């Protein structure tokens, strides 16, 4: 506060008068849009291709990257706790219902879960103990699990994920990579054999492809691109 009474007020008035003529900072939103930072994390959205089908292939990469596991594909919770489903919007209605049930404290029927049979997980625990809970030996664990159950039940995979600390996505990736591991019980063995028999061998595909491309096995010939 200065010694001259009112000087501070006059200074303030001078500042406001100067600002009166300065350029304004308002962004008139619908006409001009502010520049959004490239790193900006907005709302998550699933993309559709030009034919209107969902582009999401449930590859679990986004779920794997999410730090707090809020993303979950296909409506199955990876940890059995938070059902923050992120999936196609056709299922919003049933999720609203689920949410109401959850808030009232009643058990939530998980429609996506009902076809996964409840299995006795004791076998998984023994297998894990044998393999020292080591995620690096995942293939062996999965093979042992398959030999124990005949296939890989989802509950068993989740148990493995829970116990070893490996991501469910990683286990799923491992299991889906190897052709000899399967997720469904091999009950219709006869049909599977019939399908395999009706299918041409892999070599025929390669030959056909090579013929179509005009070179050996699809590679360009010695003359380069013919």
């Amino acid at each position, binding site marked *: 506060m200065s010694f001259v009474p009112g000087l501070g007020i006059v200074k303030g008035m001078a500042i*406001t008068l100067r600002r009166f003529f300065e350029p304004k900072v308002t962004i008139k939103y619908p006409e001009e849009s502010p520049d959004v930072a490239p790193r900006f994390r907005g709302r998550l959205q699933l993309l559709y291709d030009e034919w209107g089908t969902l582009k999401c292939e449930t590859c679990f990469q986004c779920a794997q990257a999410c730090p707090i596991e809020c993303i979950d594909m296909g409506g199955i919770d990876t940890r059995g706790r938070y059902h923050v489903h992120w999936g196609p919007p056709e299922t919003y209605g049933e999720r609203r219902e689920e949410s109401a049930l959850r808030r009232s404290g009643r058990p939530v029927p998980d429609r996506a879960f009902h076809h996964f049979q409840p299995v006795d997980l004791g076998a998984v625990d023994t297998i894990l103990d044998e393999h020292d809970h080591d995620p690096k030996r995942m293939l062996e664990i999965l093979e042992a699990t398959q030999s124990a159950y005949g296939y890989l039940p989802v509950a068993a995979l989740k148990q493995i994920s829970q116990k070893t600390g490996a991501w469910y996505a990683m286990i799923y990736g491992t299991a889906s990579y190897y052709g000899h591991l399967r997720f469904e019980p091999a009950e219709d063995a006869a049909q599977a054999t019939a399908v395999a028999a009706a299918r041409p061998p892999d070599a025929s595909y390669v030959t056909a492809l090579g013929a179509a491309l005009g070179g050996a096995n699809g590679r360009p010939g010695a003359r380069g691109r013919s």
Partner: protein
Amino acid sequence: MTAISRSWNRLTLPGKVIFTVVPALVVLTIGLVVAIAILGGPALDLVVANLPIVRFVVAATAILLMTIPTAFLIIYMEMKGIALMNLRIGPDRVGPFGSLLSVVHGLKVLMKEDFTPTGADSVVFTWAPVVVYLASVMTLLVIPFGPGLVGQHFQLGLLYFFAISGLSVVGLLMAGWASFNKYSLLGGLRSAAQVISYEIPLVLSVVGVIMLAGTMDLVVIVENQAGWFTDWYIWQQPLGALIFFIAATAEANRTPFDLTEADSEIVAGFATEYSGMRFGFFFFAEYVNVFIISALTVTLFFGGWNAPFPWPWPITLDLNPGSLGIGLLFVVALVPLALTLILATPFWLVSSRIKGWQALVIGFVLANLFLVGAVAAAGYIGFDWVAGLAWFMLKAYVFVFIFVWMRGTLPRVRIDQLMNFAWKWLMELAFLNIFITAGAIILIKYLNPEALP
């Protein structure tokens, strides 16, 4: 009966309208002609006999109507001005530069629900905005807007002004008490304390001017200040003007003395429970008050309608359109057309990209601007009251802008500081001002007995 109703029902909507409106118009016209023929003379006599009353009614109506656009204009100024000081753009959607936004606000206020809270004293609650609004509008009656442009020429105009403006505190108290809300009650009591305290320095600060002018007639006070801007009372009464301005700010409940509606303390003060047009009345009254105190400051200290300097060229425009006779018709018909063509031609010639009709549009707009300017200039030169009104409004709105400016800058004072300031500083300074003025008058009269009235 059935025949009439059946044929009526067969009419289409436009038919129904025409069948009712046209006969009604015919009947009205005939009635009017007959009534004027019979009663015209006596009615005119009655008007002439009671001219002051008619004049008062006309003036009151005009002033009542004038307050609405004034309030709209000041609200727009405040929204835009504070926005610009805040580095915002402010209203920019309705009308050019958002200038119609305050009008739209007014319409919105009209359409809102008019709500009376349970437990409120509904009669007092309803009348409070009316009292507040009338108290501020009635004071406009004595403000001289220009030579001859004064609602009612009082000998005691200034006294009338203070008497009526003191009424508004009654309205605020009524609103605060009747709202059945503690915030409203606090706001009402604050306004009573504040307005009554600041009445005293407000009136005392004007005494100096009254002594110098020798009258309380506002028209005479303004006429005394004619001439150069050095003749204004601000130079003889700087202290009085300062005290008057501060006290008037408090009187109008403006920042930094807007304690009665301090939104961060007592939600909206006395207006907390009001909605719809009742709130609109409070709102309008506040902005009309801003205009009134600006107008009174201009009247008392800044020369009123007088220009800051005498008109340097003694041009007198002696236009008598009647002298043109039948030529007037030609002028009215031809001048706009000719002006449009003359102004359009250069644009049409200069650039081949401007099409003929575009050039004509430009010419039309320019011609209109030119004519409006010419008419305004002619009015300014030819009529005293146009010049007076222009200067008066210019000065008054400068002060309105200062109020807006202060609102954009200053924080609010506290209630005890407010009271201390009124009673311990402003009142003493006002008395000091009176004594100094009196001493100066005596001294000047002693030196030169002819100097002052």
